[in-house]
């Protein structure tokens, strides 16, 4: 049923990347009868090929092509060649993700107006509002089967959640529950319900967690209008003399270069590869890279204020059993500057297996203070802290001056410095996270530093004015009419919430726009 398209078929829409943004967009367009080719750099591993083994899974799915880092963030010290933990495989990072699916709050679409001017922060309101997004959020929640929406019950709480909930109750937090998760709590959409296996980050072997790999992509393929070409790494987007894009050059599984023609190109390679591709596509007409008249491509890189708190108890917890992100406290997600910072954060349970815990609890640590913590691994509870970080123009994905990848193209460098607002928020979050656990008798708590970025945002941001950003409110580039950005790099600002629900909602909305423009003959 899969539609094979010719390389020189210039009527197809080419989507680059098959993750949350690209996989959703590809299916939505195919459902409307648009011919789509998704080019995906990674291989196709169906869910029975996933493994309950952290490092083996990482080797199977993660994006391991060389990247460099700079700036004062700890990730640059601890993981100099791994700025981000994201995926290179069909399904993109929706294979690895935990499933937390939260809508942005109204004010988070207009932070410049709400927060006012903040020194060094390149704040801007989104060109769209929550009201405009609501119907698309509703479609995304239905598509992904998000618990606590559409009458879908919440997931049952596991041990890690029960510790969090008891602490939250003691502290007087009101908004603590097992989350809005794109994980089936009952059989739905031809997929199993969650078996509480505890390996959400390694790909769900039961298909209970939504991933484009086994939802959007096969549904799109079933229309006969979508071809997904795996092991197809796009190197460059090409354009004609008039400036419109005409297709892409990619390396196939054998490393041979192929040229796929296109009517329109949608970039959804996640927020490091998407700007890198636009920059690597520089030409004599566009010497600074495609869609970069504003100079904002690659800039304003955001990764969310993150951190974790782990805690030890005198009695067993066994946090690793059950969903990785098993519950949430939302009380701190409001914007309330009396806490000493703008914006808010979420507290979400998190668990790592022993191998990852050793690598991430306190990167670089050694000796008894560290190993006694691991000795009590089964007495440990944990949470992740995720909040809005400030966009800064100097935080950027740029092309490395010397180092090249396996295709001979400059590798991306990811530069990041925390903003003072990020630091103040993290300190607050560490205190509150520890307080939750102290309230139920923790014997030791750990303010764990950020992991390599799982939420990568903002490097091709939306703006009302072409001079402020890269794309408009539909993800269409300001400069080139048939070039779109369809992933988290569109985000004008990051919000406190995990981004994927918003990425999916934007992709559904963008598909409507593209199909409409095509039917009007303007695309």
């Amino acid at each position, binding site marked *: 049923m899969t539609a094979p398209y010719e390389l020189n078929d210039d009527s197809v829409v080419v989507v680059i990347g098959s993750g949350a943004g690209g996989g959703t967009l590809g299916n939505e367009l195919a459902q409307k009868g648009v011919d789509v080719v998704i080019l995906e750099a990674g291989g196709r591993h169906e869910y029975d090929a996933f*493994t*309950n*083994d952290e*490092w083996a899974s990482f080797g199977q799915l993660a994006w391991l092509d060389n990247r460099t880092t700079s700036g004062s963030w700890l990730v640059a010290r601890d993981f100099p060649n791994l700025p981000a933990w994201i995926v290179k495989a069909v399904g993109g990072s929706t294979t690895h993700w935990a499933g937390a699916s939260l809508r942005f709050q109204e004010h988070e679409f207009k932070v410049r107006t709400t927060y006012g001017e903040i020194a060094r922060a390149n704040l801007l309101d989104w060109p769209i509002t929550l009201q405009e997004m609501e119907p698309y959020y509703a479609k995304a929640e239905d598509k992904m089967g998000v618990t606590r929406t559409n009458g879908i019950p919440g997931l*049952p*709480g*596991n*041990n890690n959640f*029960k*510790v969090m909930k*008891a602490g939250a109750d003691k502290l007087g937090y009101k908004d603590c529950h097992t989350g809005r998760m794109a994980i089936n709590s009952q059989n739905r959409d031809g997929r199993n319900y*969650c*078996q*509480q*296996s*505890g*390996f959400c980050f390694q790909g769900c*072997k*039961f298909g209970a967690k939504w991933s484009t790999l086994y939802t959007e992509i096969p549904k799109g393929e079933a229309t006969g209008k979508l071809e997904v070409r795996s092991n197809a790494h796009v190197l460059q987007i090409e354009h004609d003399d008039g400036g419109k894009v005409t297709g892409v050059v990619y390396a196939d599984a054998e490393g041979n270069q192929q040229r796929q023609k296109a009517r329109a190109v949608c970039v959804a390679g996640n927020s490091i590869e998407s700007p890198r591709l636009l920059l690597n596509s520089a030409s004599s007409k566009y010497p600074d890279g495609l869609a970069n008249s504003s100079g904002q491509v690659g800039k304003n890189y955001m990764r969310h204020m993150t951190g974790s708190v782990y805690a030890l108890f005198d*009695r*067993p*917890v*066994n946090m*690793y*059993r*059950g969903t990785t992100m098993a519950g949430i406290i939302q009380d701190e997600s409001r914007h309330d500057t009396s806490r000493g910072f703008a914006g808010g954060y979420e507290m979400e349970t998190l668990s790592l*297996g*022993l*191998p990852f815990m*050793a*690598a991430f609890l306190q990167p*670089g640590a*050694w*000796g*008894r203070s*560290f*190993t006694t913590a*691991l*000795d009590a*691994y*089964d*007495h440990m509870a944990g949470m992740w802290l995720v909040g809005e970080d400030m966009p800064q123009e100097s935080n950027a994905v740029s092309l490395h001056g010397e180092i090249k990848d396996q295709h001979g193209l400059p590798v991306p460098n990811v530069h990041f410095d925390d903003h003072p607002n990020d630091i103040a928020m993290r300190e607050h979050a560490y205190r509150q996270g520890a307080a939750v656990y102290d309230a*139920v008798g923790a014997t030791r708590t750990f303010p764990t530093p950020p992991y390599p970025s799982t939420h990568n945002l903002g490097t091709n941001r939306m703006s009302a004015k072409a001079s402020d950003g890269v794309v408009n409110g539909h993800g269409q580039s300001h400069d080139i009419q048939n070039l779109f950005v369809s992933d988290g790099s569109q985000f004008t600002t990051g919000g406190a919430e995990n981004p994927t629900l918003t990425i999916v909602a934007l992709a559904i909305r963008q598909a409507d726009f593209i199909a409409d423009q095509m039917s009007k003959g303007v695309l």
Partner: protein
Amino acid sequence: MKTADKRPKLSRRGFLAASGGAAVGVALVTSAGVVSSPTGAWAMEVTALKPETMATLIQFARDIYPHDQIADRYYAKAVKGHEEQAAKDEAHKAIIEEGIAELDRLAAEAGSTDGYRGLGWEADRTAILHSISTTPFFQTIRGNLVVSLYNQKEIWPLFGFEGESADKGGYITRGFDDIDWI
């Protein structure tokens, strides 16, 4: 409440019997081309590195990530990769030999007559590690070890981590919510 079975896969009884009752914390024996446990429970062929170097490397690994419930053989397995790499790569061999020689030199300064392994107290050895903890040698060993030690499935039960669960149907009927003290 169901807690994880913390016994190693190799039954503790059999293991202790095989190793003469002294599983951990005893001096390693070196002879030509071999490092072995004093009881002969395990032995490791070492040809690229000096056997004494490997024996010290094993102690060094334990001092970086000390777990009293983990036998030497797991530390030996965790650092074995350096022997394999040294066999292929002279530069790597030099890094290891020189790094260990430096440990012995620092131990002599601290009063040991028998190198790093001759320092009886962990605290004395740890003091040396602190003094070299920013060197590339230390960072290479530690960065490698954090994966090669903790990624051994055989030791996971000692920490109460149960590993793969999908093959057992997840934890939905096996205690995902069985905490009883909260």
